[in-house]
């Protein structure tokens, strides 16, 4: 009854379609390999286990932010508030854990939920008040950056009394094996996000809204509600990033954060997610974040000044997006 006719042809067509959809990811992965190979030759320190974990470790914060933002960007939106939002969440972690002396787990959960709350506000502003995402999240970026300074009196909050807090980032899950917890967190977060994006209603509607919002609404999907849900969900990753950065530093730095949003968006874009919405993947985003991490690390190892790293990153973004445009023309 439900058998599909000509299964062989059907699955071949399916394979081609899937391969086409994955091409940008494959390209991103290939460039990651090429860049890594280049640095392996350029520096004897690059291709070592300790450097491998160092790259992963340095990718965690950008990667976490980028994963949440991938959802937002697939809907055709943008989130500029993730950078300062992360700083605000880090401060909130300090408030919860240091100032209010809440148990660690409660403080961490509360911080992540606080990130979700920021996303919720963004979502309401965008979906209900119909403020364009760029403007709504630009405003949130300023509000969050300001609140981070206000709540901390513009001074860092140190987690010195809670040494276990930094273990969230720098500890090792398996004692003796040099593999930082932060990387485990990133992998788990990416896996959960990947499953949600590809296997659940939330993910499916994320793509549908980005592909054609009006058609999705006319198909009986409450687009407002789902958009709010998507922004709130993405906000959880801002909270998580706030935990990860403050745990790594052992302190909540209220003035950092600005600039992270653009790096995260760059990672998403390099990973093949279209800013016009409708397509993208978590795998691509993680690869994009890794490319940024590898560039950062490799250029440092080659003693190339910090200033040049952004120049290179900018060029990488242009190349990545242009290959995507070329690819679309071919089809």
């Amino acid at each position, binding site marked *: 009854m*439900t058998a599909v006719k000509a299964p062989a042809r059907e699955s071949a*067509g399916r394979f081609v379609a899937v391969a086409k959809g994955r091409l940008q990811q494959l390209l991103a992965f290939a460039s990651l390999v090429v860049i890594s190979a280049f640095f392996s030759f350029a520096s004897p320190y690059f291709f070592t286990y300790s450097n491998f974990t160092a790259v992963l470790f340095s990718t965690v914060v950008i990667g976490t932010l980028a994963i949440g933002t991938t959802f937002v960007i697939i809907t055709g939106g943008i989130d500029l508030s993730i950078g300062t939002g992360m700083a605000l969440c880090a401060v909130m972690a300090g408030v919860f854990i240091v100032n209010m002396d809440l148990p660690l787990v409660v403080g961490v959960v509360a911080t992540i939920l606080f990130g979700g709350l920021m996303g919720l506000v963004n979502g309401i502003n965008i979906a209900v008040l119909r403020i364009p995402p760029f403007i709504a999240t630009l405003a949130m970026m300023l509000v969050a950056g300001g609140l981070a300074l206000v709540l901390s009196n513009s001074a860092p909050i140190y987690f010195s009394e809670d040494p276990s807090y930094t273990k969230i980032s720098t500890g090792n899950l398996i004692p003796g094996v040099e593999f930082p917890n932060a990387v485990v967190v990133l992998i788990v977060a990416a896996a959960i996000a990947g499953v949600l994006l590809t*296997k659940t*209603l939330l993910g499916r509607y994320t793509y549908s809204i980005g*592909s054609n919002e009006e*058609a999705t609404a*006319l198909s009986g999907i409450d687009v407002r509600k789902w958009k709010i849900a998507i922004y709130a969900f993405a906000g959880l990753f801002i909270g998580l990033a706030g935990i990860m950065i403050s745990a790594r530093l052992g302190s909540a730095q209220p003035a950092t954060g600005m600039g992270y949003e653009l790096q995260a968006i760059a990672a998403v874009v390099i990973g093949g997610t279209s800013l016009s919405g*409708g397509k993208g993947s978590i795998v691509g985003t993680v690869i994009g974040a890794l490319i940024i991490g590898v560039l950062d690390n490799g250029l440092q190892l080659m003693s190339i000044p910090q200033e040049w790293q952004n120049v290179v990153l900018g060029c990488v973004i242009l190349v990545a997006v242009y290959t995507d445009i070329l690819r679309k023309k071919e089809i």
Partner: protein
Amino acid sequence: MVTVEPQVASLPLLEVAGVNKTFPGVRALSDMHLELRAGEVLALVGENGAGKSTLMKLLSGIYTADSGLFQLAGEPLEITGPKQAMELGISIIHQEFNLVPHLTVAQNIFIGREPRRLRVLLDERRLVRDAQELIEGANLPLDPNAVVGGLTVANQQMVEIAKGLSHDPRVLIMDEPTAALSDAEVAALHELIRGFVRPDTGVIYISHRMEEIRRIADRVTVIRDGEYIDTVDVATSTTREIISMMVGRTIDGGNGPAGVRDDREVILEVTGLRTRSLLKDVSFDLRAGEILGLAGLMGAGRTETARAIVGADPVDAGTIALRGRPIRIAHPADAVRHGIGYLSEDRKRYGLLLDKDVKANIALAALRNRFTTAGFVNDRAARAEAAEYVDSLRIKTPSLDQTAKFLSGGNQQKVVIARWLVRDCDILIFDEPTRGIDVGAKEEIYQLLNELAERGKSIIMISSELPEVLRMSHRVVVMSEGRVTRILTAAEATQESIMHYATLRPDENVEDAVELGLDPVELGLEPVEGEHS
């Protein structure tokens, strides 16, 4: 009928001979011929995918031919781009508008070649004057200072035409110029075309509408599958002959439906629907298994009625009852929950997820209630169901993973229909179900609508094509200026009766009466609404 002046008869105005064009994997045109005589209107017909648009793109220089000959009045033509095509005297009015909505009519007409002073300063006064001259010369109902975005679709079409005429072309090519026009507007357009055709100019008129071609064209060239089939005089060939040349087989005409379905249960009852923008007191009912035609001119409020019913636009007043029970619809999600699906006239904008595959498009509306367990989507079930509908609706697609934008118009329409069938909607509102769909596929859509009605689904069909309304509808709701002016039974409905009620202008007395809360029908200012009780 063919009134070619003897002295120019020897040389065709525009000649296309032996043209080939191949795209990777597709032979779009092979040995194509076309001959436009001076002083004539030549219709170009063919199913979607026959090669009409490829030919147009060759003539406008968007594509380059692999081989073949183009001649304008005996001179070989070398077309390198749209701008150059215009300079050579070939103006093409594309089906999809290329207008800047925020600019005025005059600014749009002369976009890219604005009159200037001292090379840099725009000469707005001359711009408006030139536009005014052009508009008056062609007798167009346009104000050069009006902002294009605020115009009706018909008037936007007129702006496109004015733009085309502003180049003083010898050959005017119109691609489906009437797809968005009501019959009255079509008549005005035809008037304009007749005014344009002189002994040294000609028009190529691409259309799917046979009755229009009969009215305006002298000859008709038929192409099929990228090949030239034949050119015949319109006066001496029947519509059926032309259509069978297009599709390569004989088409069964099919006659009107079997009549009123008075005995059936009333499924949907709309009473006193009113919106701020347009609708005033729209009331009608819909029965099980009925196809209810919704006819009217452009701007009569047909699409607005549909959108108001499904909650896509805000409603000021009115009630909607489903099987006798009043329901509240604030959002399309409510309508869908009650089993009401709307299929927009603009499939690309409001219907399809163009860059998603066929199965995602079919599953979209039913995803939540049929293919999701605990938030997780059951792709296998969605896929199997989509495959069934691809089969049963005869959707032509290489696979379920084909991207929707690569399907033909007819198959895209079927994908959207499948979406609502998977969702198990009992009431389907089709807005211009066959717009932009070729003749063969149209027949299939008609058959499908009839099958759906047979199965007990209730259908509201909005259409600007009167033959379509007459052929398909059990009853016809006729609207004019936001009101229902009459509900006709299949027996009462004729082209003339529909046009009569569609052009009925409720005068100020009626307006006043309505404002005062009086019933204009009782006052004898408006015809009695509806025959049913």
